């Protein structure tokens, strides 16, 4: 036994030496925060389905009014209050062109087909529904832009500079947010004509506040971290630190919050149009279409159903996508 040990002498070993090249080598593929978030988002079935539905709605809203031969505002009293009819789908009671068992199209000798039916003035509701959806999507876009441009800048400045600047900016926010949105819009509408412009200004005035608060919180959290100090030591100015370091680091939070403010803005516009403070005839909005439909809900329910379904789908999908994004960007929040 002892003999065996003797044959293996110290001299038989030689140090391999640590190869820094090998030990520091990253064997897996580098996954950036964005790819990681994307991967998590894709596994969320509900969010992906909502994304697809949203894409479909956007395509329909853009193309819808152009794929049939009626104009959005063409009136024809001979065609008033027709139920929906699609020949290819006529086996479905919804699209048979019948109302209470009577084939209205045959009765009134209408040869044309109206996919979503017509309103009291004989305007094609397919066109008007998608024209209204366009307005909702436009509002969504405006709300997102306002969030990004005003909210992020305001919150960024307030949080980054702190002190007196922060104090003044926060007091202003406190007063603005103490007044309900509804009051802002009413004051605006009294001065201006109700319409898209007034709604846009109301969104401009109030929609960025939640975002400003969140970005400020993020700034306060991030600005004292080491990487900011490192950047400053290397000579970076305030602008560079804010736009190259702090904002990219809170971008996940910003995107998530934008996604939640979009459905709120869409609802706000539809609500205003519904009570007659928003988009007015002859322009179509989902809210005003539903409002008009309500007056004859008991006789022709079909006129309310389609705009109602579209706006509900829009809001549901935006909310689910928002939830999906939140879970994807910050898995800690997923519960």
């Amino acid at each position, binding site marked *: 036994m002892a003999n065996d040990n003797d044959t293996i002498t110290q001299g038989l070993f030689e140090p391999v030496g640590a190869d820094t090249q090998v030990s520091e080598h990253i064997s897996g593929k580098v996954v950036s925060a964005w790819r990681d978030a994307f991967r998590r988002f894709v596994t969320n079935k509900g969010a992906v389905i909502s994304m697809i539905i949203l894409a479909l709605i956007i395509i329909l809203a853009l193309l819808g009014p152009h794929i049939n031969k009626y104009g959005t505002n063409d009136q024809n009293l001979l065609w008033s209050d027709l139920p929906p009819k699609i020949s290819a789908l006529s086996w479905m009671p919804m699209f048979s062109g019948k109302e209470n068992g009577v084939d209205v199209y045959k009765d009134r000798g209408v040869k044309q087909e109206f996919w979503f039916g017509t309103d009291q003035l004989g305007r094609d509701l397919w066109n008007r529904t998608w024209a209204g959806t366009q307005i909702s999507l436009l509002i969504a876009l405006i709300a997102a832009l306002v969030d990004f441009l005003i909210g992020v800048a305001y919150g960024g400045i307030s949080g980054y500079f702190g002190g007196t600047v922060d104090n003044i900016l926060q007091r202003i926010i406190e007063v603005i947010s103490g007044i309900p949105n*509804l009051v802002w819009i009413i004051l605006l509408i009294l001065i201006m004509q109700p319409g898209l412009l007034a709604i846009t200004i109301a969104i401009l005035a109030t929609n960025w506040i939640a975002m400003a608060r969140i970005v400020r919180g993020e700034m306060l959290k991030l600005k004292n971290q080491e990487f900011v100090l490192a950047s400053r030591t290397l000579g970076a100015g305030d602008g560079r630190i804010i736009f190259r370091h702090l904002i990219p680091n809170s971008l996940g939070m910003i995107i998530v919050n934008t996604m939640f403010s979009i459905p709120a803005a869409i609802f706000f516009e539809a609500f205003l149009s*519904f009570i007659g403070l928003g988009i007015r005839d002859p322009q179509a909005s989902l809210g005003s279409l539903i409002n008009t439909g309500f007056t004859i809900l008991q006789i022709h329910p079909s006129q309310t159903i389609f705009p109602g379904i579209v706006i509900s789908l829009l809001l*549901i999908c935006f909310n689910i996508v928002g939830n999906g994004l939140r879970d994807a960007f910050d898995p800690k929040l997923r519960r």
Partner: protein
Amino acid sequence: MGRYILKRIWYMIITFYVVITLTFLSMKLLPGTPFQNANRLTPLQLNTLKHYYGLDQPIAVQYVKYLWNFIHGDLGTSFQFGNTPVIQMLVAQFPVSMDLGTEAMIIGTVLGILLGIFAGLYRGSFRDWGTMIFATLGISIPSFVFAGALQYCLGVLVQLFPVAGWGTPSTHVLPVTSLAVGILAEVAIFMRTEMVEVINQDYIVTAQAKGLSRGAVVFKHAVRNAMIPVVTILGPMTAAIITGSIVIEGIFGIPGIGKQFVSSITTNDYPMIMGTTELYSGLFIITILIVDILYGVIDPRIRVSGGRS
């Protein structure tokens, strides 16, 4: 604590002052004249009228007068209802809206909290999943679409409840349900998140370890602590109730402030619009104040930092 409350009240007064000033300014900026057939009046008549209503005085004087009247509860007279004082109409209609709002708020909050506890306890299971789908729908579907669907299905097709009106308990069912669903959904999601957070805390493990029954752990330790932050959504909830009640009172023909508000908009009844606007902001501002103070009382950590942000 006293200083904190004083500070909050001070902010409240500033905010409300801004609201009143804004309403005054927007009234001054209104297009057109306040007099009917103004172009048929002679300059002399017009001047007499203007003098009578104090409109010939400088804006600053008018402003002070407006504030003075406001403090004394004079909000002007309604255009559409033969010069009835606005304040009188608001006082008459407020109880109806208040009934609707509080009923919806109580039902929505209580059911929402229960649903949130339920979902939080069975996190990740089918029950949780179902509850959350229901809550997402409740948050997303606009109140006016939901109210319309409810009215059509249960009022017109099945005729279970009256389609419109306000009075007997059965007339309350549909409007209160429509208004409560959004609140219920919001509270449920919020409560669930809080429950999940609280359940993972160490003191819950301690409670379980010392042999408490499941019921005692859930209700004495988890639910109690999870409920504290729910207070904070009371503010946004009030705003939601106000927006919701405007639509729902219109749909169900309830003679409250919301319905009145819409009709004053369509008839350009400016004093009425202004009065309602001020009432709404007042309600909102006071709710926020109450929430802030309440939160400070319930959770002592808030007071020290002097507010949450």
